[in-house]
């Protein structure tokens, strides 16, 4: 029985939380991804749900590295990721996804934009009653702590200048931590080895962009 997520607007209702909590969900073949995206564009909630269940675990893990330290374990943080995913998946009209890896990278950017919006709101408003607790905390994210805000911005800017295929390879491997076996499917590569080569080439181009 699939999880039922979409009965009350953007509020997620899960009847099968193990699906999302298990961490690793097998990636979708490119053909299946394209078919589901097409169905989502025609308002098929079942297809939306199928994509959500595939994309959510990796992005939820990803958000742990990008949100303030106090975000860990807080429902608010997961709500931010879930609601952003649902909203982004419903607005895919102009998105040209060739495979699930491209979709994951697109959704990662949507979550990042949402986090930035919330942080900006936090900075503008002294009263934080409506702010998720995790975002009201001004402690830096694990990533900002590790590399600093300046390097983080440099990385993001260089990432934007890459070809989409290179950007997707880096995001799906380094940030979303997909295995090479998963990447082969996600990026539509003939083998895990080919996926590994694609990641390394993309990293080399990124390092050259950052110079």
């Amino acid at each position, binding site marked *: 029985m699939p999880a*039922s997520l979409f*009965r*009350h607007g953007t*509020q*997620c*209702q*899960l*009847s099968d*939380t193990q699906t*999302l*909590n298990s*961490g690793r969900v097998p990636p979708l073949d490119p053909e299946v991804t394209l078919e589901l995206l097409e169905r989502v564009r025609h308002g098929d909630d079942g297809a939306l749900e199928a994509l959500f269940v595939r994309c959510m*675990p990796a992005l*939820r*893990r*990803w958000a*742990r*590295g990008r949100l303030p330290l106090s975000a*860990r*374990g*807080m*429902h608010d*943080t*997961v*709500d931010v990721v*879930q609601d952003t995913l649902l909203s982004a998946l419903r607005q895919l009209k102009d998105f040209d996804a060739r495979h699930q890896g491209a979709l994951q990278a697109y959704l990662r950017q949507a979550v990042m934009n949402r986090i930035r919006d919330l942080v900006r709101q936090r900075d503008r408003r002294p009263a934080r009653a409506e702010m998720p607790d995790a975002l009201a905390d001004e402690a830096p994210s*694990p*990533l900002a702590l*590790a*590399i600093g805000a300046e*390097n983080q911005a440099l*990385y993001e800017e260089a990432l934007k200048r890459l070809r989409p295929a290179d950007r997707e390879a*880096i995001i799906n*491997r*380094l*940030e*979303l*931590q997909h295995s090479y076996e998963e990447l082969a499917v996600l990026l539509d590569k003939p083998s895990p080895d080919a996926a*590994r080569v694609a*990641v*390394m080439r993309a*990293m*080399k181009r*990124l*390092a*050259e962009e*950052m*110079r």
Partner: protein
Amino acid sequence: MKASVIDRALEGVSDGVPVDWTALEDNASNEFDLECLRWLRLLGQIEAVHRTTPDDVRAVPTTTT
């Protein structure tokens, strides 16, 4: 054929395994490689943060209707 310092760095970061950055830097033959290593090291830090940050799965809401 011996892998270049850049190739060794790329493999280490991509595979998520420890990289001896000091040794690679010591073996870099020019400024270009040194600067590339600097940025690859940064990518390695980004990869490590995402690999080691725990996933708190209990935070998924479970409300049912």
